[in-house]
């Protein structure tokens, strides 16, 4: 066993897939000699060469488009968005070209688009985004969003091996904050489409993913100690396709649901989860499905503002306490 950070686990996963399969290659801005803005691909260029670690112009649409063309031809591109905020520049390419390719034309497009997402880091409006909801209603894409180091590794490997395009979201607040013992010499693969119970509980379920998964776990711990409320925490891990069975199972177990995500509220993923619970487990509910999310504003820079806008552990504690008493 060795202790690795979330970032190192991701890096290991990428490295192992590059070693395992020469079809895998990386393209993006500053990914080569510089090793990436967050050093996820540090050392890759030296080991795998410039033809497999390609530094590109600042052209997100061309990065994703070229990845798609290469994927059609049997390569396995991993495209980095330097910050995931810039994926909006490739929105057309991903949603219109890539996501539809198999359905409309029988084209195989096994590519991964990955990049650092998320706030709590004073990044301001354009270095803190969570774009998952913008892609959730795009049939043809898969979206994974690991919270643990193990899943950071297991999901990047599974994403690269998947036959369809995968959007891999990696929270930069977790990069060096999360450390975990991972076995050496054992292949870690996290199946796409499977949620994970991060904490067992009886009275109330919190459904979350990414950075707020950790804040939800903190909140659960506090509620257990202070209130004796037993909170189950479900880590979605994959947002598309969503693990309906795991969601329904936790609802049937605790009968109360709080959905927590860092993205803004309106049109966010929590709304979709709530709709699914309503359709599949309405009669199992003992209270309203509630949401803790970011406020509906662009994410501001100043610590006082960002901390207020984004969901914090104490927000989750208060919301869960309210729901437990309902």
């Amino acid at each position, binding site marked *: 066993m060795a202790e690795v950070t979330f970032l190192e686990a991701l890096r290991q996963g990428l490295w192992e897939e590059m070693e395992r399969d020469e079809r895998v290659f990386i393209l993006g801005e500053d990914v080569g000699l510089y090793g990436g803005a967050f050093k996820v691909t540090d050392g890759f260029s030296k080991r795998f060469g410039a033809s497999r670690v390609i530094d590109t112009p600042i*052209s997100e649409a061309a990065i994703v*488009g*070229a990845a798609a063309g290469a994927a059609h*031809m*049997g390569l396995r591109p991993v495209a980095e968005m330097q910050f995931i905020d810039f994926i909006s520049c490739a929105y057309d*390419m991903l949603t219109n070209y890539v996501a539809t390719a198999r359905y409309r034309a029988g084209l195989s497009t096994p590519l991964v688009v990955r990049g650092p997402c998320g706030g709590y880091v004073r990044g301001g409006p354009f270095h803190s985004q969570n774009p998952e909801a913008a892609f959730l209603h795009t049939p043809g894409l898969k979206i994974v969003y690991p919270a643990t180091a193990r899943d950071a590794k297991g999901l990047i490997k599974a994403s690269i091996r998947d036959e*369809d395009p995968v959007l891999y979201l990696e929270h930069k607040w977790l990069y060096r904050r999360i450390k975990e013992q991972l076995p050496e010499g054992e292949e870690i693969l996290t199946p796409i489409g499977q949620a994970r119970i991060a904490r067992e509980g009886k009275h109330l379920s919190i459904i979350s993913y990414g950075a707020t998964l950790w804040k939800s776990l903190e909140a659960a711990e506090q509620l257990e100690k202070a209130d004796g409320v037993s909170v189950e925490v479900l880590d979605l891990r994959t947002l598309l396709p969503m693990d309906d069975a795991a969601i329904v199972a936790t609802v049937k177990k605790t009968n109360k649901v709080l959905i927590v995500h860092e993205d803004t509220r309106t049109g966010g993923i929590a709304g979709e989860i709530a709709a699914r619970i309503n359709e599949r487990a309405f009669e199992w509910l003992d209270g309203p499905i509630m949401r803790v999310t970011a406020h509906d504003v662009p994410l501001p820079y100043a610590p006082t503002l960002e901390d207020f806008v984004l969901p914090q552990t104490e927000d989750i504690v208060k919301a869960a306490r309210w729901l437990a008493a309902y």
Partner: protein
Amino acid sequence: MALPATRPTAAYPSGAALSADQLLDIYYFLRLTRTLEERLVALYRQTKVIGGLFRSLGQEGESVASAYALERGHHKDILSPLIRNLGSLLVMGAQPVEILRQYMAKAESPTRGRELNVHFNDLEKGYLGQISHLGDMIPVMAGIALTFKRRGEPRVGLVYIGDGGTSTGTFHEGLNLAAVQRLPLVVIGEYNHWAYSTPPDKQFAVQDLAEKAKGYGVQAVTVDGNDVFAVYEATRFAVERARRGNGVHFIEVKTYRRKGHAEHDDQHYVPKADLEKWGSENDPVDRYTQRLLSADMVAEGDLKDIDDRVRVEVDQATDACVDEPLPPAESALPGVYVEPAAADKLWFKAL
């Protein structure tokens, strides 16, 4: 032969590099393109074409000639056509019956009724259908050319972009990326004067599209797009240059869209005199035919035989598919992903 880097010359090419069989082959594809489109017009008027119908009248020459300059066959060069490059598709081996089925949304169409008109592909034969978002195929074809380069394969990608399409961001991003990576990619810029109803002076402030390409360090020429020989020679040169590892080449073909954006569009915004002039003096098929005959490159009887053969082929293709069924409704669900294999059928369908 080095091509001039600027304007085309009327003196361009002799056609000497093409054998008599190849000259007749090109004539066949020109005639097939035009005849097949005329058949589609008839089917459109009978409401058998489900969506719009897009004509390439006046642009058949550059489509056929540019595609003909590629290495064709299993796992050779790959092109990505636009809506007015039916001729390019046919040259690469797409079958008339496939085109007809696509337009009529038949179950047996290459996309099983999921996509329209020429939006389909066969990468083994060497064509990748476009999507409607103009410019997007430039980066995608750059990615295909990147794969050729990475694997050390002597293959070339060719992609078309219209004069209007050169205004999109993806065109510029893709061309620049391809230029920086020195990819084996040839871009055909079709200056056909009309982007739906928008004329060039509202689309860009340069004279020639080639100027845009040069801005990215890309070799660029402008040729007479209605001269089959000129387009063939220029493309051949560019393709072989790209194949040798000398990077991207842009060929601007000056031509004219002689029908509306689609069949519903009466193109009232197009000056009648222009249409008349391009039609009577500068039709690419007429020019090619006259050239062949006046230089005694082929016999008139050979051309007539091809005309007859094309008519029979289009008739047979039509008969083969016109009465075929549309796809069954629930065939809409599978194939979004490998896994899950099909989208869920929604609950209210079972009520």
